[in-house]
């Protein structure tokens, strides 16, 4: 199988590490070669963060470079627009429409661009935009945005809902299991 590439992008602190952990658990039991590359350290403090998930028969590079991503899952709108060059022709961006102002916008040194979904579509990009934050809140916590997004991503793969749920069980503490399962289902059906 040709290597599949998923980029998870967002703002440090939004929980992208749990999303990649979940994908890792799911893919490991399916017998793929896998590489998951994360960022730790300073950028986790509210900076732009990116995680790469790659799987296939044989995976070399731990990172996804420009033009390689089959899917970009973005936790935030501006971050989706930041990484579009990483998308493969025919790839898809799944984006939470939540906006989080970066500090240059907060202090008035820059503007948060308008109509980003439209702009991405105008550039010929396949965009699947939805309000994952509301669904996370509906599931019981705004922190579950990561699992809502994974639920939405899951529609693009042949893995069964049961296989995803098993991976969730292996990735979250029992206390938060029900909340996350609900978040996943809401995202999958969105």
């Amino acid at each position, binding site marked *: 199988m040709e290597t599949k590439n998923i980029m998870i992008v967002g703002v440090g602190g939004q929980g992208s590490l749990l999303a990649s952990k979940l994908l890792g658990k799911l893919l490991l039991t399916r017998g793929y070669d896998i590489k998951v590359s994360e*960022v730790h350290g*300073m950028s986790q403090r509210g900076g732009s963060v990116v995680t790469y998930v790659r799987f296939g028969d044989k995976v070399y590079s731990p990172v996804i470079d420009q033009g390689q991503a089959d899917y970009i899952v973005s936790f935030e709108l501006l971050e989706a627009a930041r990484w579009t060059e990483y998308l493969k022709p025919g790839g898809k961006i799944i984006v939470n429409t939540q906006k989080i102002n970066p*500090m240059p916008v907060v*202090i008035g040194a820059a503007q948060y661009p308008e109509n980003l979904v439209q702009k991405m579509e105008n550039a010929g990009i396949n965009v699947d935009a939805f309000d994952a934050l509301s669904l996370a809140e509906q599931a019981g916590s705004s922190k579950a945005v990561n699992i809502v997004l994974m639920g939405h991503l899951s529609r693009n793969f042949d893995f069964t809902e049961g296989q995803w749920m098993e991976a969730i069980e292996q990735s979250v503490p029992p206390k938060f299991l029900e909340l996350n399962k609900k978040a996943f289902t809401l995202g999958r059906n969105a």
Partner: protein
Amino acid sequence: MKQLMLGNEAVARGLFEAGCSFVSSYPGTPSTEITEAVAKYPEVYAEWAPNEKVAMEAAFGASLAGRRSFCGMKHVGLNVAADPLFTISYTGVNAGMVIGVADDAGMHSSQNEQDSRHYARAAKIPMLEPSDSAEALEFTKQAYEISEQFDTPVLVKMCTRVSHSQSIVEPGERVEKIGEYKKDIPKYVMMPGNAKRRHPVVEARTAALTAYAEETELNRIEPGADSKMGIITSSTSYQYVKEVLGDQYPVLKLGMIWPMPEKKIREFAASVSLLVIVEELDGFIEGHCRDLGLACVGKANFSNIGELMPLTVAQQLSTPWAVGAKVDGEIPPRPPVMCAGCPHRGLFYTLKKNKLTVLGDIGCYTLGAVAPLAAVDTVICMGASVSGIHGFSKSQQGKADGKTVAVIGDSTFMHSGITGLVNMAYNESNATVIIVDNSITGMTGHQQNPTTGFNLKGDPCAKIDLESLCRAVGIRRVRVVDPYDLAQCDAAIKEELAANEPSVIISRRPCALLKYVKHKAPLTVDTDKCVGCKACMQIGCPAISIIDGKAKVDATQCVGCGICQQLCKLGALKEV
């Protein structure tokens, strides 16, 4: 059973399986998880040391005592530990000793992007360089075999992409290794007479290791379809070469990066029309090839600045590669910021308000240099704020008095701030050091340190009392403030700067991200009172923004620290 492991976790697994029983490290991105992961094996004693020099010397002590040992650090940490490094090279080891060092090309979380491979050559110590997690595990185990066979410490060099990438490993069993201490004065007492006899031993060892480098499977040739070009590479660069070119050209993959083979490289070079070296940062392999008189393509095509990426390999080696579409217009950058509720914020606001020159240090509080606070004048390395303020203030002969402070975190102060403070007391500076004590090593992801009262395993342990420590070195003026209280901070800073002797202010409040910290409810804005004056925006809190001329608090981020409330003269920011 196959497992997905971070490169750092795989090093830890390698330590466990190799029978390593003593680990001492100082946290530093991207090396930290090696030590956190190994601490989970009850068979291995693991600790956070106050700094890398202490960690390396402790690991040497354990090796001397007959136990396989390890110390881990980031690239700049190896600078701190360079003193023991160069001399442990001379003494060699008793039981195997491995030093893990993780470089940060691209500076995701570092102040420089030095290439640690130079240390292997300079200290005459072998260095292995894994390219994924499976190799991280295997190479770590092999490092102990090399260490004991050749009587040398061995460096295992990681980098951000190997340390922080998960890939598949197959864990094995642990083999216990327990040796005995044997007294050997000529080998272990490095006074001139003995050291003179050890230096030739080191040179002979390097010759023996070079012969080993010719034969070891760590250095392997992977055949390619076309010998028009041949590539020598290592570490994550190897993965990029294979990603882009597959099996098109022959590849010499070096798993042992020092000493490098000579014959093997010459033969490989002779078998291809063009020799290309693909490596991250400096032209280290390239330099070796040129020393051998081999013509090659290297840093003239691949920059020695920043991370190497697959796209660069494709572009430089003429491989077609399409990139995705770009969105019209500017995409504003998103630099890291202090978290909402960060206790450092109130302190830096006060420093800015008082227009002070601030010598900063390494940690989350380096972010005090970012706009709108922009309250830091310099950051160099661990501890440099305290030593630096001494030189700054002394050289100004009183002109800097009352206008200059050093800011350093609790963990960084224990690492190497204390020696600078001793200098200030001893040589009589008139300057103020502010220890921002957030009760944790924050930036690297919440590691314990000597001031927190807990050890690496999370068990309660001895706690260094910062106030007593500062007084003990001779600082008479030591006081504690709460950085959430702006008036208190302001008064303390003014008073200490006015005093005619050195002083320490401890700005104490735990990191807002610590699990035990209880947060207050998010604040709300009374839109009738808010006039959009932006007074609350001066602190750069990511939870506050101005929307349609009024302040707005993001309830998902706000932890109710109340600093913005103290800035609002109209009382528009309210508790629910």
